[in-house]
């Protein structure tokens, strides 16, 4: 083999190794969690509240809270996120400095560390307006956290609708809002849905902001919107932090439930993307 071909082969092997490290780690991680947690993944986990006895401890309040958080997030983020995206893509004049600043601002917000959102929640919602450590405060802060991601995804979906469709509708005498609401938005819905679901699944896996807001305390009852709460990621963190090894296994069981929820959402998003992919 010539030295050129040898070098090329070694390089390609190095690249494959880089890619393999990520996938092997993912595989080992999933196997590790599965082996540790599968023994604790039973009815108790779904129906019982946490307890100091790992044998009868479950994650029912945490699972319910995560579902409530998901519903509230959907309710808050999608209208505001899509509204902002429509404003930026269809109405805003890009020449104006404030619109360019708005864009830069949203890009920056998308990369703010999640713990900072927790500080915002603690300072403004929990202590500032005295909402307290309640589920609604958690939902509001997660809303602000994912909003930039939803906006960016919705903008891309709206931008991919070709201009000829808008022109055609204008030519028929439609007003701007008629064009947006009856032509652009329906065409952009699959893209918006995919982006929103992915963003939502990211938000439901967030732990750090909720630790600041939700307090890592013992919650034995079903959550309410204006009551104290725990959530699956917090419950996992709490169990991981306990010294007894049984609780680590219990944490693995709860991780399996969290991963099942998030991966289902991811799969749904990818399926939507492939099912409704459109080339104009």
């Amino acid at each position, binding site marked *: 083999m010539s030295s050129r071909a040898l070098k*090329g082969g070694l390089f390609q092997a190095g*690249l494959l190794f880089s890619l393999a490290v990520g996938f092997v780690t993912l595989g080992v991680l999933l196997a590790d969690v599965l082996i540790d947690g599968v023994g604790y993944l039973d009815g108790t986990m779904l129906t019982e509240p946490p307890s100091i006895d790992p044998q009868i401890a479950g994650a029912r309040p945490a699972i319910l809270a995560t579902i409530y958080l998901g519903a509230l997030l959907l309710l808050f983020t999608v209208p505001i996120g899509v509204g902002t995206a429509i404003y930026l893509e269809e109405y805003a004049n890009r020449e104006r400095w404030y619109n360019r600043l708005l864009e830069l*601002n949203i890009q920056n917000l998308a990369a703010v560390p999640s713990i*900072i959102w927790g500080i915002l929640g603690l300072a403004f919602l929990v202590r500032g307006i005295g909402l307290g450590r309640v589920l609604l405060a958690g939902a509001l802060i997660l809303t602000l956290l994912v909003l930039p991601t939803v906006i960016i995804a919705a903008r891309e979906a709206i931008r991919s609708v070709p201009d000829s469709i808008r*022109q055609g509708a204008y030519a028929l005498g439609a007003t701007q809002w008629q064009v947006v609401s009856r032509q652009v938005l329906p065409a952009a819905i699959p893209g918006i849905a995919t982006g929103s679901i992915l963003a939502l699944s990211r938000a439901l896996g967030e732990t750090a902001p909720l630790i600041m807001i939700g307090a890592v305390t013992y919650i034995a009852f079903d959550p309410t919107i204006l009551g104290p709460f725990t959530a699956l990621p917090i419950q996992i963190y709490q169990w991981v932090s306990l010294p007894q090894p049984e609780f680590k296994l219990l944490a693995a069981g709860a991780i399996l439930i969290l991963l099942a929820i998030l991966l289902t959402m991811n799969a749904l998003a990818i399926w939507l993307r492939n099912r409704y992919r459109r080339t104009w």
Partner: protein
Amino acid sequence: MTAGAEPLRLRAERRRIGEDVVKGVLALCALVSVLTTVGIVVALFQPAIEFFREVSLVDFLTGTEWAPLFEPQHFGVLPLITGTLLVTAVASLVGMPLGLGSAIYLSEYASSRARGVLKPLLEILAGVPTVVFGYFALTFVTPLLRDLGVGAEIFNTLSAGLVMGVMLIPTIASLSEDAMGAVPRTLRDGAYALGSTKLQVATRIVVPAAISGIVASFVLGLSRAVGETMIVLIAMGQQPNLTFDPREAAEAMTAFIAATGAGDVPTGSIEYKTIFAVGATLFVLTLVMNVVSIRLVRKYQEVYE
């Protein structure tokens, strides 16, 4: 929008109030993001400024002992900064080369069918919550390191950094791959026509041409590592430790914020304000990195798109 195809917006002679209302409502939605930024700045900096009235900025930045919750109190942030820097360094050493390698493979070597399988898998890796990575670092990687005779403590920076490095791979790979995808086909063809090998095209044409995007992905990776909370909180420890030995336990800035915020420190106390002083430091650090990253991405987009 392509040049020359500026849409002709015909205005109705009669003003339609409904249209104006819609535009106003949409602008209000956009205002939420602006108010959020204002909120973050006010929430962080107002208590942080109060903090610096009580503790001098010099003591804060140069003090080597961090003990705000115990008497006698010390407010030297250096141990937290070295903790964050050390874990970020380990994560970068893992995540940057592996992320870049993955990107080159996906962009230059993989068939489109292989890409169709590999990219969603990377997305799954990107979708794993950080609390799960923290669990993995503490219960799998740390015992593994100890079995290998590395001499790591139960909580240690090395394990947290290694796992964080893997967490960075999808971020760095996808952004770098976007940049490589924007390099025009003609540049590659020209190099092949001159007799270059695939290796030469990848390393001497594509990587240099996409360098601003690659650097942007590295900077964004750094910013994510600095801001990452759960992995360091769970696997690295919660004792401030001024050390450069990654086998020891230490506390990162984010871990301090989370541990203190979760407790019930009274509002307005100096302990409460430390959250904001450390938070403001973290925010400024990551903001600078994010702005640099956004600028670099714009640069390659302007050149090639």
